[in-house]
């Protein structure tokens, strides 16, 4: 098998499997400086996945996790049990080999239930967004 063939065979399942190693390391090293080694690798792999497979359903799940972890380096704040939870979730997804939109939705909701804030970007509400209100 040459290099070109290998590149063509990269799939959402395969890249997601590679994330599991870093997630396991993050789970066992959460809160420690060494966790940065695995967070850096994890986030880079996630963005590689985004660039290579932007339409893959696995990418959609991984991007939800990416945003929760990458924004303001919040990966530092998440606990070992949360990393274990997401490890279990992604393991279950890669075991399915192919996932549909419903699985994507359920997975993102599971991330939220595990405590990952997948919409972490704060929109300051100095003025109310709906026109009739009068927030004080």
């Amino acid at each position: 098998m040459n290099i070109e063939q290998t590149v063509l065979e990269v799939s959402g399942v395969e890249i997601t499997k590679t994330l599991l190693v870093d997630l396991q390391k993050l789970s066992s090293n959460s809160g420690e400086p060494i966790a940065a080694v695995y967070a850096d690798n994890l986030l880079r792999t996630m963005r590689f996945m985004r660039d290579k497979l932007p339409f893959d359903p696995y990418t959609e799940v991984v991007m939800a996790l990416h945003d929760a972890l990458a924004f303001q380096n919040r990966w530092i704040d998440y606990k070992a049990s949360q990393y274990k939870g997401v490890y279990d979730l992604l393991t279950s997804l890669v075991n399915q080999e192919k996932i549909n939109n419903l699985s994507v939705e359920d997975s993102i909701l599971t991330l939220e239930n595990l405590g990952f804030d997948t919409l972490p970007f704060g929109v300051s509400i100095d003025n109310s967004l709906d026109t009739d209100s009068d927030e004080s």
Partner: protein
Amino acid sequence: MEDESVTQHFLDTSVLRSLLLSTQAYKQYFESQFTDQPLYISNYVQMEMKRSYLINLISFYFVLRLETINNIGDAIALWSNRFKTSELKAILQLIPQLFSTHQLNFSSPQDKETALSVLAIYIKRFELLLRKKFNNTNIDSTACARALVPLTLDLKNPAVGLKQFADEFGDVETCRSKCQIDQFLLVQYRDEIEQLVEQADQLPKNSNTRGFINIAKNLKEILTQGAAACNCKRCEKIGDAVIALNAPRSMQLSHTDNSFNYLCLPINQPHYKHPSENQIVTNINRQT
């Protein structure tokens, strides 16, 4: 059997928006208030989020997609120069955070395509959480048709689904022809609306009452002019009244707006006004 001592919270748009979109400190405030308690929203509240935020995100997607826009920076510049309302400024807060988190270069034409993809994935996720993160009362006596417009996205070609949503959500004449807001206001809750209008007439106009008085003024016009005065634009102006009237009386309506203090009392709707984001952040700063 459900534990009757547990408070069920019905979220106004102001609180729903904060739970989905506010800063971490404000989200943590609400999480501490609602620990393990069931949270409910309605289709109408979802519609208000789509109207005030989702539709603007979609608009920004198409600004960025324009062939005359070379990069993310160009899209931000165009948006900030031309669109000034608070709703539209919210997009300017989100976009730099989202794209910076993805390590995108704001002046690179190559990163524009990645940005479109990232934004489509974000929009799809936002709509999912709006639809499924909270319980739905499944009660919308207005039968708001805009609330029912689906967003169906194929990430391989998101523009199609986004445009279809924008077309249907923006078709307020068709949506209005399907809803029952006139029945809701002029028949089902006519007595309550008359009471609210009467209450507003007796209040002094100040910063606390201004929002409620504006709502009551619009309700009064609807009472005077009848169904012809009911449209989606008017519904924007009376949204808090619709939400209060449609809230389950067995639940506590959670909000941050002063108007509910006046809307809830005459209709015996339990409610709680939460502090604003500024108040929470100021308190945290004082403590540190």
